[in-house]
């Protein structure tokens, strides 16, 4: 059951202006319909985290940290390490955010980000096992949203991916008694692919990528699609109480692949040269 949702209000005149612009193939900030805002990724911003990054996507800002410890695997996957992604919109991030337990939007955000990482097989969780059924690495990625200006889905996903790529985790070995002990050696996580999330909003008959808060206030439906290195789609989520035609879904899928490659190279550059 949802409580009252606070709504980001856009004036009628502004709405008219925005839809006029969309009809001409452009947007309030001058972008084309399939242009992302500037994406800046700064890595290793938190020394105490095993991996971290700060992501700015236009005015949307967030920070992600990776913490790793040893844990016990789930009974149904004794041969796999743990990977948990969670996200939180901090109360300082927006006048509409409030402290308290996560609401359904935040839960959806975290679950969709998690789905993209998990289903793409970005991390080879079978390599995160020390003793099958007993000791596995538990990788936690926590994303804190610092400033909200739309497209939290993509920004969160980029933050998770970048922080996992930069993470250096302590290597554990088994001692004589078969107990795991921490060594000083630091290793990278077993990365197999770089999943990239691309979210598109439908306003009228237009699909636009990377919507701002203002554009999100106008959107009727939203579709997030995550693609991997090979161009496979590996996660998706339609959102908002509106619909999409099947043609729009197919269009969204091809845009997601195309823009995904673009973003992937930005992420790679930021992580490997940063």
């Amino acid at each position: 059951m949802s409580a009252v949702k606070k709504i980001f209000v856009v004036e009628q005149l502004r709405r008219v202006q925005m839809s006029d612009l969309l009809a001409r193939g452009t947007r309030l900030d001058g972008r084309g319909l399939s242009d992302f805002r500037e994406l800046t990724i700064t890595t290793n911003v938190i020394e105490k985290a095993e991996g971290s990054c700060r992501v700015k996507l236009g005015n949307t800002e967030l920070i992600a940290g990776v913490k790793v410890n040893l844990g016990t695997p789930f009974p149904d996957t004794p041969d796999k390490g743990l990977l948990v992604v969670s996200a939180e919109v901090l109360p300082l991030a927006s006048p509409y955010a409030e402290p308290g337990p996560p609401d359904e939007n935040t839960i959806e955000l975290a679950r969709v980000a998690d789905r993209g990482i998990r289903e793409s097989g970005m991390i080879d969780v079978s390599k995160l096992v020390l003793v099958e059924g007993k000791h596995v690495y538990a990788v936690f990625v926590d994303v804190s949203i610092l400033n909200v200006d739309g497209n939290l889905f993509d920004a969160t996903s980029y933050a998770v991916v970048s922080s996992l790529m930069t993470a250096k985790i302590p290597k554990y070995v088994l001692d004589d008694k078969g107990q795991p002990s921490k060594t000083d050696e630091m290793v990278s996580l077993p990365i197999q692919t770089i999943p990239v999330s691309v979210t598109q909003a439908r306003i009228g008959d237009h699909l636009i990528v990377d919507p701002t808060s203002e554009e999100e206030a106008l959107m009727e439906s939203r579709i997030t699609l995550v693609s991997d290195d090979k161009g496979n789609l590996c996660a998706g989520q339609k959102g908002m109480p509106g619909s999409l035609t099947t043609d729009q879904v197919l269009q969204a899928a091809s845009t997601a692949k195309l823009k995904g490659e673009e973003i992937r190279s930005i992420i790679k550059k930021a992580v490997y040269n940063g």
Partner: protein
Amino acid sequence: MGKQGGDSSSLINEQGIRADGRRIDELRPIKIEVGILKNADGSAFIQFGKNKIMAAVYGPKEVHPKHSALPDRSVLRCRYHMSPFSTEERKNPAPSRREIEISKVTREALEPSLMLEDYPRTAIDVFVEVLQSDGGSRCAGISAASVALADAGINMRDLVSACAAGKVAGQVVLDVDDTEDKEGQADLPIAIMSTSNQVTLLQLDGQLNEEEFNKALSWALSGCKKVYELQREALIGRYFGKNEKVLEVEQ
């Protein structure tokens, strides 16, 4: 979740027959009953394979708390919930994060079909209770909920029909069941409004290349259309004579 690995060779045999005897483009048996709960304004029961799901609608009714009412339309509220005995292992009855997400996507899948503007300052509650789950429960729940909304007489543009397609043992299949969901490579639940071909729910778990995605999408759409026929027949059966009608899926 965790769709990598698992021995998937036994899921489809050389003749293209799946573990439960279905062809790759075949739905599980579906049965829909309308008006099964006395107190509810509208209700439906769906059996979708081993899924047994009840949906009930209460409303339009007064909104509590009052401040959540909207001046120009009704507030649609959905709760998807799994009974503790619905799964292999007992499920904690408290709503999980998964259930909260499914409640949200269920609401968003149903909302485009409803003329909420006809009922200002009211609430419409939809309760989806999964009594037994067998993979694809969100789709079956949405299909049942839409029938329950029709049974409640809520003004609507269309019925919402849902069905999933996926990838199992390297092949695109229609209507992924529980085992296939766990061992398969992808699951693509879809809901549509049949007459206008509008997609109101789309989720994707697992990997599909472009060709597979297009194929899975079109199969899921055809599955939705079959579900639509059954929803329609169930409603007609309820209101024009026949109390209950068992409908076999024709392929």
